[in-house]
């Protein structure tokens, strides 16, 4: 077991973890942050996406020990039931959610894009979510939902 300290959704977390534990397992099993999910375990589907030190990453491809000292944002760190993040609101409004399994990762990828590039083109939006697979929506409404936020049709 190895001690780690990190920031998760603005709170300091200290834990003792097994070496082989992935960041995804740590978030889900230890912190009960269940928004990040496993779809492939291979870095191919993006459902495990979290933001680590300002960048989206696949939490299935990071050992929890590697996150020592890092600052992590998960979907639970965005908005809440009282007040949704504009992206969350826009996803609902645009019907960008079907089964919802890819949605947390998708929203985090979109947030990371808009944080860096508030006015992306459609191509840039597509590229930013190309590491997040979705099998239900055909992506079109997801792209529209992100576009709406970027164009300020949804308060930021």
């Amino acid at each position, binding site marked *: 077991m190895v001690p780690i300290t990190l920031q998760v959704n603005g709170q300091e977390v200290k834990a003792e973890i097994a070496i082989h534990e992935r960041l995804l397992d740590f978030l889900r099993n230890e912190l009960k942050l*269940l928004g990040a*999910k496993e*779809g492939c375990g291979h870095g*191919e589907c993006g*459902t495990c996406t979290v933001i680590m030190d300002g960048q989206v990453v696949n939490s299935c491809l990071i050992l929890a020990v590697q996150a020592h000292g890092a600052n992590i944002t998960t979907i639970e760190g965005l908005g809440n039931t009282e007040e949704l993040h504009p992206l969350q609101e826009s996803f609902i409004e645009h*019907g960008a959610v*079907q*089964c919802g*399994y890819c949605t947390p990762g998708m929203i985090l990828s979109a947030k990371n894009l808009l944080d860096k590039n508030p006015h992306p083109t459609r191509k840039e939006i597509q590229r930013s979510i190309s590491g997040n697979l979705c099998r239900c929506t*055909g992506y079109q409404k997801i792209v529209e939902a992100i576009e709406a936020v970027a164009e300020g049709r949804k308060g930021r």
Partner: protein
Amino acid sequence: MSKVTGRARFADDLSFHGMLFASTVYSQHPHARIKKVDMSKAMDIPEVLAVITPDDVPGSNGVMRGFLVLAGEKVKYVGDGVALVVAKSETAARKGRDAVVVDYEPLPPVLSIDDALKSGASLVHEDKEDNIISKSRYQLKKGDLERGFAEADFIVERTYETQFVAHAYIEPEVVIAVPDFNQEFMTIYGSIQNPFSARAAVAAALGWSVGQVKIVQNAVGGTFGGKDECAILNACRAAIASIKTHRPVKLSLSREESMVEGPKRHPYRFNFKVGVKKDGSILAMKSELIAQGGAYNNKAQFTNWRASIHATGPYNIPNIETRVFGVYTNTIYGGAMRGFSSPQCIFAQESLMDEIAQELDMDPLELRRKNALSPGHTLPDGQLLGEGGLPAPLPDIIDNTARKFKYSKPAQPQEGSVKKGIGIACGFRGAGLGAEAGADATGAIVTVQSDGSITIVSGLTDNGQGLKVAFSQIVAEVLGVSLDRIVYPTTDTSIIPDGGPTVASRGVMIGGRAMEKAALEVKKKILVVAGEILQLDPEKLTIENEEIFSPDNPEKRVSYMDVVSRAYATGQMLAALSWFSTGVPEFDYETGQGKSYPTYSWGMVITEVEVDTETGLVKVNRALSTHDVGTAINPAAIKGQVYGGYVMGQGMAVLEDIEQANGFVKSKNFDEYLIPTAMDIPDIDVLIVETGDTYGPFGGKSVGEPGTEMAAASVANAIAQATGRRIRNLPCNLERVFLGYNLTRQGTAR
């Protein structure tokens, strides 16, 4: 709402006190006799509590028409489970799984349709006479085939084949079995598409009655028809492990396990012979369809029946003979997948139409327009279209779609290595289950609670496709109340009779009709109570915006809440359980003639692609997908279904293929099995056509499957048009588009 905040709970997000973890030992051979299972090394692992073999199955090891909870004597494909290891942690369960030693005696595997039909082929199921799936044979006969051929100016014969396609839902299968403390009841949570089928199988495996098993549905991360046999077998395994250990047991499949064990879209081979007149009219069509069923099959009899009705396409062909059957192979197996044999049929059928057009030197659009089923024609099953029959909107759909897309045949030849092509596909789809398995029926419960909230329960399940919203809207609309009042608990098999599976786009059509019926009954009861308060004839009352009044005398009104209070105070029930059934259809299975489906939905897709002819790379540029939805209840949701459906069909056309070598699956994860990403999608436009069909609730017809079924065909036709070369086997991958044939590691090409 909870889905955007990460708070929606999927099966893998659930845990129970004392929960154990299980892992399945999978076969190491596509076909082999099991000589010995040595579990001693697995049992030596400290956290491993049990290893379960077929001997531990308390009830029936055989479930769902021939599937095995665990294979005991022989394995028939690499996804067969041989044993189950139960441990205190997932890691230990998987370690234990790898420590189980199974001794096999390999048998010659049957790997293809040709293998299966060869004389002297080894038998996939030794208790059967041959490798043909029983009950998978259907035929349709209309007119006089030989006369049709004799009158034709020429004959076209073609063969097409499709591949195994994965559902590729992003959530792999997860099930949890939770026993009650007396071991008299078992609750199963899981990503399961069809709770009632799951309940029947789990009860059979446990040797219990169905009432002792309860399936509770949580959020499901996509299914598209697929979270069925494999999810259910795993539910059976988890339940048995749970009985054996007296603890909740979770079985969570990795992506690789899900890809290897789970059902796929059936590959089909189509042999067509068509008789055509010089003017383009199609006089006769003979088609033979063979489905590759894989190791087990409880769907080919249904997919094949649907195929037998749809194989000749939405065209007015007076003389038809269609024969279809399926075969067993020692490979991954075919199950239900969005479209249920139609995407395969439409690919073949619409490729054929384009090839006929080419032979005639006729515009493919013109050929379709000429042969389109129109008012006055009869469907392949003999049902009349038009006046006194079913709606026949295809001719208008063809015209309107072509106009909106600004269809024109690109000039040939084109300059440069990147060539554009435009492809068309038309389709029709029998609504619901039809005569597939007798009557199509399901139930719904609508209950007005004392606080005015309305609980609705359907026998069908929301798998992410939005049934919850659709059902809520139906009830709110009928009862004239705010949508906020509707509460939709997750499906629970113990509170509503078996409503059959949520398949075949039955959701809105059958489930919605049942829901509408229940809501209407409740409305009647509300009006009776309101009538008492208002001293008016309930027959004359109506509800609008939560107020009940008579249109003749709108001043006199009472609020919905006052009615609810009075009903509860005076002991009157505001609830109804209703059942909607299509009745047993009149249908002759010998000839395929009769009322195959109560109605059809019609559509057309046009796709434009760009093909890099020097590399074979296909880019799908834009598409227009037109659908007859009866009455559009929720246009935004319809578009959502069509976008998703189209992209799934696009994947089938150009990317997706489960690569197998000697019965072993090569594409086990998303690095090898490629589905479209957000960068791959075209601009998709949707044209909604309303036909005033009275069949669904408020006249609505489902669009989940039509949305996907024509896409692959339109893409393939666009590619052929761009390159001038027809690819008759899907997918149109780099190698096929460039070379005209496929390359595989074993060097076999098809």
